């Protein structure tokens, strides 16, 4: 177990190093950092001096080491477009994205699991067919289209909900939250629904197929033969055994929710990290791009690590398989 954790941490470290290398390559070689920072009338001698000051003439290895060290200390450089330290920008926008992602994930779990269990248990009922159809539409409708349709109906036609921004926010320390004001809560409904919709269908379909598979196994037949109540069989035996893959997928999906937030944030002009990243791409703002990359990679690696370890804790078969494969 400890060996596994150490190996996993080592792998995560390698991944982070690779991502840092990509980010560094972007930072250093895509576009010239000096010409981005200075005005047009700066002389070549001045630019050369700046180059020396910034250490851009040092060997690449030294530069990369400096880049990595700065990153570890949270110094991500200065945005070309906004002229402000990148970490300030991200700290400002982190709460918006995390709140949105969290609410969306909660929504997809709370609605998706019951829907999946129901369709798995009663695949032939009318309501199950309806759920199935909804999930298919959820998978086929692009996220941005769902958002636009919501805006059209609830924003433009009915005028019930705000169509852009976070509403009023309350500052708690450095964290700004929109969850404590009425306008903030109203503003998060449509974005969270849009963002959670895809995950919801994913979770629903996963639980459904797992349930159907588990219900066919011998131990479920045995449990029924023992005369256990339907409730005990369905929830105590069947659902419990479907939860292992669900935990994994949900964990991994938290990462992609944060990434998919780019789309939702664009549709609703939600002032989060995704919108910042997208604007950075359009304006070739490399420091912001590479910082977003590193930050997202960090989220992913940490979540992956936790999920992996959880997986091995929850499912003893995995450990056994590994031992067999090795021997």
């Amino acid at each position: 177990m400890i060996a596994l954790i150490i190996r996993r941490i080592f792998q995560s470290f390698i991944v982070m190093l690779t991502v840092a290398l990509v980010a560094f390559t972007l930072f250093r070689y895509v576009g010239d950092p000096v010409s981005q920072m200075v005005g047009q009338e700066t002389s070549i001698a001045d630019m050369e001096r700046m180059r020396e000051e910034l250490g851009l003439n040092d060997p690449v290895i030294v530069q990369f080491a400096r880049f990595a060290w700065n990153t570890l200390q949270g110094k991500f450089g200065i945005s070309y477009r906004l002229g402000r330290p990148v970490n300030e920008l991200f700290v400002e926008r982190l709460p918006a994205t995390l709140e949105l992602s969290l609410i969306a994930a909660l929504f997809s779990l709370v609605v998706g699991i019951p829907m999946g269990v129901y369709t798995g248990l009663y695949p032939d009922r009318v309501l199950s067919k309806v759920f199935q159809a909804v999930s298919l539409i959820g998978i086929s409708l692009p996220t941005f289209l769902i958002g636009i349709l919501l805006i059209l109906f609830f924003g433009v036609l009915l005028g019930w909900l705000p169509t852009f921004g976070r509403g009023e926010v309350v500052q708690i320390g450095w964290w700004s939250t929109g969850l404590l004001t009425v306008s903030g809560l109203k503003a998060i409904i449509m974005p969270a629904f849009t963002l959670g919709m895809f995950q919801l269908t994913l979770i629903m379909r996963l639980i459904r197929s797992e349930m159907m598979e588990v219900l066919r196994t011998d131990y479920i037949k045995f449990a029924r033969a023992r005369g256990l109540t339907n409730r005990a069989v369905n929830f105590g035996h069947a659902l419990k055994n479907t939860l292992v893959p669900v935990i994994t997928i949900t964990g991994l999906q938290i990462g992609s929710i944060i990434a998919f937030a780019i789309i939702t944030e664009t549709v609703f002009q939600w002032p989060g990290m995704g919108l910042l990243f997208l604007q950075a791409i359009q304006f070739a703002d490399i420091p912001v791009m590479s910082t977003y990359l590193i930050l997202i990679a960090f989220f992913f690696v940490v979540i992956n690590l936790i999920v992996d370890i959880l997986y091995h804790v929850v499912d003893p078969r995995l450990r056994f398989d590994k031992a067999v494969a090795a021997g």
Partner: protein
Amino acid sequence: MKSVTRIQDSLHRFFDGDIWYSFKKSKVTVVAACVTAVFMLAAFAAPLIAPHTPFDPGTIDLMDASTPPAWFEDGTTKFLLGTDDQGRDIFSTILYGSRISIFVGFASMLLAMIIGITLGLVSGYIGGAVEASIMRIADVQISFPAILIALLINGVAQTLLPGERHDELAVWVLILAIGVSNWVHFARTVRGSTLVEKNKEYVQAARVIGRRRATIMFRHILPNVMGPVLVIATIGLAIAILTEATLSFLGVGIPPTKPSLGTLIRIGQDFLFAGEWWIVIFPGIALAVLILAVNLLGDWLRDALNPKLR
């Protein structure tokens, strides 16, 4: 002659086989296949059937801008589904736009398939350090959503290529970005099946008679691992079309001068508040129906090829 009878044979086997039977039996699948076929045909024949040529600035009249669909008071039958802010006919633009969307979807799916199959076969058959390093890269890549990787590749291309060049090359940059971001599923599946196949007797026999490694991989093993690849390819096509639309919607895909469906929706979003909903809704419906149809085909194929579910 021999090849003709072989084709006849396989056609017979196909039409008598389980797959064709399950296709005929599932009405939804037949409808989905028809819809997909109609889309492909319409997109392919866009220059012939479209009433206007929206990509030719000479035929566009700004006076026609923002005309509502024909069944509204201000609409004319000249523009069946209305026009956008520049006076382009929405119906024609949808036809031309689906053409781009389907082309980019197919091309990037093919690219992903070629990369994935090759790496999957190589890592499954050769094994060792090659396998370990390929699969490690796959592990890292699959933990990031494809859309993020495509965005990044696109962003780098946009930075490196000057504005006009980028607009010209946008289609190819997109194909590259989407293709590279989607190969992992192919590689993993192919590797898994290759690991099973390579210990079978026909592979051993091929090895004994001295066939080259590449021949064994592509001529002998590949045909036997194609089933699951087809399923992934169908679903991959839907994903690729979706990714293209999303990137274009985000403003980093196809430029608005020759819009794809996603670009059209992006343009239309700005006019939503002015009540000009048709610029968004019709391309949106077209996109959703196309993706839904391809997804349904993929779902059916997966069930048809998986005997466990029957």
